[in-house]
């Protein structure tokens, strides 16, 4: 797996990524997922990462990018072609 931009988050990121990949391939793709089982681990990772993003001023840049991406959300978050 890839590293985090914040080295202090690497451990929790690794645990989350491993959990996610297993869930994705064994449950999600097979249509048997009802919840995102890795969410508790993601919350821990996010707490660590958010701090680093804020310290580096990246959170502001992300807000702008999110606003730019609204059209894609509108287009791809509705189930199409089925």
């Amino acid at each position, binding site marked *: 797996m890839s590293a985090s931009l914040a080295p202090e988050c690497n451990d929790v990121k690794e645990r989350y990524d491993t959990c996610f990949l297993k869930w994705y391939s064994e449950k999600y793709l097979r249509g048997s997922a009802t919840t995102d089982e890795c969410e508790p681990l993601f919350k821990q990772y996010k707490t660590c*990462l958010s701090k680093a993003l804020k310290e580096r001023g990246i959170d502001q*840049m992300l807000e702008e990018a999110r606003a730019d991406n609204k059209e894609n959300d509108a287009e791809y978050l509705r189930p199409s072609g089925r």
Partner: protein
Amino acid sequence: MRLFTSTHTFDYSWEEVSTNNWRKYCPWNDKASHVLAVDTLSRSFDPATHLLRTERLITCRQAAPSWLKPFLAGREESLVYEVSYVDPVAKRVTMCSQNLTMSEFLTCAEKVVYTPATGDGGGAGRTRFEQEARITALCGGWAKVRQKIEEFSVERFGQNAARGREGFERVLAMSRQVFREQREREAAGAGA
């Protein structure tokens, strides 16, 4: 604005490609040393539609040409924001990304779609890759400069796209090999 497009067919199933897409930049990829980090910013799964939305932040080593470096205020990393949408029922992965850094000079909006291959290039276990990038330079009224920057950027984008594909092929091959070895070990264990 310049448009770059490319298509490719991977000899792997959509399930394998979409799974390995998450670890495209892992150490198995020997063509991605410029990718320093990949962080997940958010992930939401909707059990009603089965859609999975993921936001990621990709940190790369700065790859700007030397003549642009004085304008980059000493930032040593370039950042890319990516939002992906997986539809496991329609079997479609759509990834939209844009640059966060250097965006005062240049915007690069990329869209990548992975779907099962159909038609002539199709058959079970193949995946179609479609890539489109819109590159726009923004430097006041200097049309010539803008044109040069766009030309340079499209060329570089094309080189990187080819490397990206090669690296991903390697990740797919390694993943299949590791999976097979694991199965063999399990089978040997069960038979013992």
